[in-house]
């Protein structure tokens, strides 16, 4: 993804099973970047903005975001990332079960870069994640500007 610095993938997903399946399929697509997994919004935000190895303080990242989290709505995290500070240009891929039209529109309005609905059918699901992996392997991620 990025020549100079490895891009970390931050996955915010409350369902362990989903997280595991996503990781498996991304790996199958040949992506070997580090994947940090968080099951709730609070710890994820803490890592994103405050952790020394987190993207705000250290290097570029790509965020995989589920909208249904136990402690806060994924759209709130999306709004926070896209509205202020160091992470506003960080690509966010919303990966969720919701395929409600209004929800999709809202996410793009808030600045999400890609919105993917998790297919229930596992073959489609695996296929979608693999394609996402291929996509991730070619996209350019901007460096974090510390301003």
């Amino acid at each position: 993804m990025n020549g100079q610095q490895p891009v970390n993938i931050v996955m915010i997903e409350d369902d362990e099973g989903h997280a595991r399946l996503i990781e498996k399929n991304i790996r199958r697509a040949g992506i070997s970047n580090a994947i940090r997994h968080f099951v709730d919004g609070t710890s994820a935000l803490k890592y994103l903005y405050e952790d020394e190895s987190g993207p705000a303080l250290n290097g570029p990242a790509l965020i995989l975001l589920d909208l249904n989290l136990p402690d806060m709505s994924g759209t709130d995290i999306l709004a926070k990332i896209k509205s202020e500070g160091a992470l506003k240009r960080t690509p966010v891929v919303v990966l969720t079960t919701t395929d409600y039209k209004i929800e999709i529109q809202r996410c793009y309005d808030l600045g999400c870069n890609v919105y993917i609905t998790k297919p229930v059918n596992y073959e489609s699901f695996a296929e979608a994640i693999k394609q996402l992996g291929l996509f991730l392997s070619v996209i350019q991620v901007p460096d974090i500007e510390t301003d």
Partner: protein
Amino acid sequence: MKAPTLFSLNKDKHFGQIVIAFVSLGFLAIFAAGLASALAVQRNREHTIWLVHTYEVERGISRVDAAVQGMRFARRGYLLDRRHGLRVEYAQARGDLAKAIGQVDALTRDNQRQQALIPQLKWLSGQLDTRLLFTMAQADAGHITGVGQRSGDAGSANFGQRIRQVTARMFAEEQRLLGERLVAQQTSIHLFFWALAIGGVLLVLVAIGSVATIRRYTFNLMQSRDELRLLNEDLEGAVRVRTIDLQRANDEIQRFAYIVSHDLRSPLVNVMGFTSELDAAATPLRTLIDRAEVEAPGLVTEEARVAAREDLPEAIGFIRTSTQKMDRLINAILRLSREGRRTITPEALDMAAMFQGVADTLRHRTDEVGAIVTIAEDLPHLVSDRVAVEQIASNLVENAVKYLQPGRPGLVEVTGRRQGVRVLYQIKDNGRGIDPKDHERVFDLFRRSGVQDQPGEGIGLAHVRALAYRLGGTITLSSRLGEGAVFEVNLPAIFAGTGEKDA
């Protein structure tokens, strides 16, 4: 509402009877009073005539007396000084007497007693006249002197007295009649006043009664009007509250359905995902068993072989089909909840064209089973939501084609008619029919009826009914097992909104 209406109707009837009775009574009283008055006036007039008559008779009698007096005075005067003028006067008085007697005679023709006295009166006056004339003639001849005068005079005086007696009797008779007639007149006047008074009192009573009844009725009427208005306002309020409650409940259900179906999907993704992983993991295991069987048969137990080749694929297969079914059910709930949230956009719909379109999409299937779908050309048009109506139409026609009676070529008829502000569409088939005890059940979600030989989840009719309700309509079913089914959709001809906010 029924009991008060009946009650007031009864009251109305009662009131009408009372008013009519009062008015009739009033008119009767007026009529009776008028009749009594007319009768009294008539009788009074008769009495007055008779009174005048009596007075005339009395005057006649007085004239008789006066004439007799006149005759006697004229004769006495003549005897004293023999003036010719007194003879003339005498003749005049005599004429007056005859006239007066004639008058009295004429006037008292109705009175037997007076008539009986008339001849006597005539005779006496004749006798008197003869005596008087005789004495006057004697005086002319010089026979009579002072004494002779007296003797002749005595006879005439006698007759004069007798005449006066007769006239006095007649007078008395007339006085008696006068008294009688006066009393009769008084009585009739009293009667007249009584009639008037009773009539008046009756009128006043009727007036008071009528006014009181009308006032009470008006008061009742106003009271019930006020009550009705209050009830009406209350009803509108109640309906508004109920509608809001219903809307809230509906919104709640929609949200619930959405959340449930949505949250159920997440674990399902895992189940299906890891089943696939399991399946994938089983493949190298099977290969291992295959290889071991060839290379080291002693290592492969019967148990391991059955587990890898039969149990594992079977278990995975069941998990797969079950999760797939669960997925379909969840999707159905999701679709229903989404339908409920969808904004209704009414537009003019050509229903014949729509049903024809539905029939065309089912063409390959109908051709396959040899079924015929006929659509009436005069299907009434509709202003409603295209997507919803189309789903209702396609679900019903599809069902009709789907559940045929084996051995009977399918025949589906679509007809419709307008009924006031609503339209009715009938989808009639000759298929296998639905047992009456299942008529309500088939509209429930995930419920089906009859032989389960057709694919389906039991969603279609639940969906159709939800849509019909959403469009302000209803759907009914009449059918007997083995005799086909008739689904009747009743929709408002022009969708006017269900009052819900689509914001």
